[in-house]
Structures are given as structure tokens and as C-alpha cells.
């Protein structure tokens, strides 16, 4: 696979028998020997180790970093306490989503993690938007996620993380150098994301993988895990054609940044998003991201067109992610439908291989999260 970048764990993936695929310009493991289904189940039952080093790691340094970052996102960054992390998204002037990200306040700086496919654009966007702040891409560190009910016990053998709560961050010394740890992830499980110096990454990963509870997990299971958790995959469930209201991500916009909040607006697309947030009545034709459960067993994957009736001529929406959910034991999807059809249990029809099959709107997440609050 020429021209693809590799992560510091590349040799380890090959040694572990991973099937490698191109993903966002990187050669990444899609699965290991035990297969996607068992990897998924292992993560929910014990602990899974994911190489997410392809994601962008960025440091924002300077006294105006929080205030300036607020000019690019509808989140409260000035209100983000030291040692805490928050989910955020960059918006464009139409209110569309440019990327979703994690922002951590580390005291001396802000640590931002962005999607691999968007990272070059994101860094350019940060550099042009944050003129008083130093924007530094971290290129010498790997990023490893350890997810699942046994993640805490496993990582605790290396560094003391038991006292960290969900969405807290800490920098801790370890035999593998300083680890930048957040108690978070993207699987719906308790767990951690750990940034480690690239030269120590393989030894650190090996130390975890030697533990009974830890198995390596590929991108295949990462996708089914995040889908069961109702989490969006950028470029599929959210993009520049979906705004945060349509994407059902308004929970991630703090009150202080909403209309009538003390720091309302002041981010790209604030007009569009603000109007929707303060509207007295929901526009029933506006799209909404919903969970979907097919009534039959056939998965409805990305691209499946949704209809209001079995014989309707015109579509009303589409599936943006779909797969079999190994933990819930049936197929699950997410997609967009008009708000008037977004109530839980609304029956719709998805066209699969030329046949209209029934599907119901379902609450998200499909499986409740087990974060450590």
C-alpha cells in the first residue's frame, strides 16, 4: 500500500496478524485474527486496545487560546475547567459541521484531538482563526485508546488512573515517559485515550496487550461499537450539510453560548444555529438524525434510502451508518428523516436491494453508555 502513512504501532499490527486497510491516508488495522464480532464483544466484556494515532493531536498555547477557540466552535471553552475535556465541533458559516473534536484544558495549554481525514484542514482553520495563539501539531506522539470495563484495572497497573472521572484529563509520569491521559473514548464504554511518545508507543502497547483482559481491536469493531453507542462518525453521520440541530448534537452546546447566554453566538454559522435553537416551534420539515432499527434481520447500511410508506414515490431520508450490532444482537442504523417523522417508533421503509423493508425510529444510544461519572 504505497503512499500511505503508518503509525508508530504499524510493525506491531503486522506482528499481531492484523488485516490492514487504507483509512484517511493511513494504513490501519481493520481487524485482527479473532474477527470484528469477537473484538466488539471483547471490548464490551473486558478491554480493547485501539491504535488511533492517525487522529490529529494539536496543542493551543497562549493566554487567549480559550477565547479564540470560542470563535470557531459553539462550545464553552472559557468555561472548561482545568483538567477537564469537552466534545466540540467546528462549524462553517452555514452552520454545517466541519469536524468534531475533543478539547482538553491542561492548564498550560489546550490539547485538541481531531479526525484524521480532516486534520490538515482543521489545523489550517485553527491557524487562521486563532491569531494570538500558537497552534502546534503534535507529530511525535501516538494515540492509543483503551476501552471497556477492565480498562481501568489494566491501565492502573502502569499509572494511577482510578480517581479520574469521565472526561477528566491528566499528565502522568510512567515507565513509558509522560502519558497524556483522558478518561474518554468513542465506544460507549468506560476507558481512556492515552497520548504517548512515539518511541515508547510500541512498548506501552505491548505492556497492555500482555495483560489477560486486553485484546487489540481494529477499525471494524470500533465502528460497530461507536454505532451502538449512538456516536457520530464524521463524513458519514455529520458533515458540512448537517448543522448541530439537525445532527441532534444540541446537548453539546452549553447554555452560555446559546441565544440569551452571556457569550451567545460569535462562532461561524451562529445566525442559522441560534435561530433554530431559539425558535418557538420546530420546523417539522427540517432533518433530524435518528436511530433506526430494521424490523427484519437485514442490515440497512449507509446510503439506504428511507420512505414514509411502502409505496411512496419520493424518499424522506437516508441511512448514514448501518451495521449489525453485536451487543444488541440485531441490525442498527442512524440516518436523517424530517423532524415530523423523528418520534421514536415511527415506522418507515428502507429500500434494500430493490425491496422496501420496514424500519422503526429508535432512541439513541442503542446500548446505554457505561462511563465512569
Amino acid at each position: 500500500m504505497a503512499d500511505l502513512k503508518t503509525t508508530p504501532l504499524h510493525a506491531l499490527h503486522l506482528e499481531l496478524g492484523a488485516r490492514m486497510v487504507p483509512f484517511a491516508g493511513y494504513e490501519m488495522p481493520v481487524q485482527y485474527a479473532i474477527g470484528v464480532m469477537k473484538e466488539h464483544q471483547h471490548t464490551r466484556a473486558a478491554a480493547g486496545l485501539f491504535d488511533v494515532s492517525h487522529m490529529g493531536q494539536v496543542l493551543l498555547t497562549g493566554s487567549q487560546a480559550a477565547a479564540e477557540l470560542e470563535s470557531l466552535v459553539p462550545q464553552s471553552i472559557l468555561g472548561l475547567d482545568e483538567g477537564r475535556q469537552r466534545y466540540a465541533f467546528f462549524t462553517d458559516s452555514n452552520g454545517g459541521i466541519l469536524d468534531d473534536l475533543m478539547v482538553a484544558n491542561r492548564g498550560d495549554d489546550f490539547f485538541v484531538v481531531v479526525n484524521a481525514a480532516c486534520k490538515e484542514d482543521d489545523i489550517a482553520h485553527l491557524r487562521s482563526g486563532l491569531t494570538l495563539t500558537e497552534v502546534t501539531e503534535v507529530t511525535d506522539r501516538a494515540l492509543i485508546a483503551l476501552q471497556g470495563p477492565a480498562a481501568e484495572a489494566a491501565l492502573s497497573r502502569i499509572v494511577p488512573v482510578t480517581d479520574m472521572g469521565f472526561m477528566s484529563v491528566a499528565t502522568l509520569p510512567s515507565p513509558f515517559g509522560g502519558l497524556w491521559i483522558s478518561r474518554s473514548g468513542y465506544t460507549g464504554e468506560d476507558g481512556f485515550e492515552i497520548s504517548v511518545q512515539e518511541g515508547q508507543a510500541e512498548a506501552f502497547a505491548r505492556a497492555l496487550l500482555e495483560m489477560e483482559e486486553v485484546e487489540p481491536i481494529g477499525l471494524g469493531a470500533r465502528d460497530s461499537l461507536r454505532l451502538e453507542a449512538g456516536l457520530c462518525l464524521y463524513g458519514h453521520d455529520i458533515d458540512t450539510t448537517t448543522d448541530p440541530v439537525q445532527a441532534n448534537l444540541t446537548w453539546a452546546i452549553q447554555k452560555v453560548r446559546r441565544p440569551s447566554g452571556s457569550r451567545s453566538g460569535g462562532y461561524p454559522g451562529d445566525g442559522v444555529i441560534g435561530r433554530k435553537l431559539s425558535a418557538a416551534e420546530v420546523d417539522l420539515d427540517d432533518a433530524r438524525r435518528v436511530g433506526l432499527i430494521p424490523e427484519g434481520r437485514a442490515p440497512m447500511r449507509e446510503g439506504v434510502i428511507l420512505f414514509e410508506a411502502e409505496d411512496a414515490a419520493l424518499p424522506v431520508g437516508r441511512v448514514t451508518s448501518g451495521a449489525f450490532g453485536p451487543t444488541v444482537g440485531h441490525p442498527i442504523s442512524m440516518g436523517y428523516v424530517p423532524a415530523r417523522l423523528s418520534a421514536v417508533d415511527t415506522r418507515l421503509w428502507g429500500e434494500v436491494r430493490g425491496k422496501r423493508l420496514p424500519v422503526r425510529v429508535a432512541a439513541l444510544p442503542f446500548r446505554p453508555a457505561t462511563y465512569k461519572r
Partner: protein
Amino acid sequence: MKYTEDHEWLSLDGDVVTVGITDHAQEQLGDIVFIELPEVGTQVSKGDEIVVIESVKAASDITAPLDGEIVEVNEAIVENPASVNEDAEGSAWFFKVKVEGTAQLDDYLDEDAYKDLIG
């Protein structure tokens, strides 16, 4: 036993051919989560897409390897698609097709030729 280049196995008993997918095929597909089989009584022609298999990765089709009539399908694999990952070349067969003349099978690979194909 005969094999197709599409990784089906064919086992002849009288004028009825039992069809399944090879162990190699189930390995390539990964965990199988959904199977749709044709209805008993369907007349099929070689090349017709008559089975849908969905794995955790993707959907794929199985085509009819022969002209004939579907006389039996294995409902057990519809109930438990994962059984194909466990016993693809045994209990997890897909369908049985009654053929007019067995000469149709001559075009297909024997075990050695199939092994060469999958390397």
C-alpha cells in the same frame, strides 16, 4: 465435490446438488450476520443472484451455479447465520438444486484446482 471460482462448493447426490460456500469464503467474508435464501420451487438459471449474505463488513451475493429448481433450503443458517462461520463445508449448506443432467458440473473445479485458485 466440485468448486466454483466464486467459492461455492457443490455436492452431487443423484440429480440433486447441494450448494454451500467454502471455508475460505467464510473466512474472507468475516462474521456473517444475515442470510436470505431463495424460495423452494424457484426455477433458477446459472448466474442468477439467489442468495444474499451480509457479514459485519459488507453484503455479497451468491449466484446459482447451475440451471435447475430449488428443492430445499437450509433455514437453520437463516436462524443462525454465524453457523456458516463454524461449519461452512458441512452442516451450514445453503440450498439444494435439482438439475437436468449432471454434465453442467463438469465445468467446475476439482479440489486440487480450487486449492490452487485460493493459493
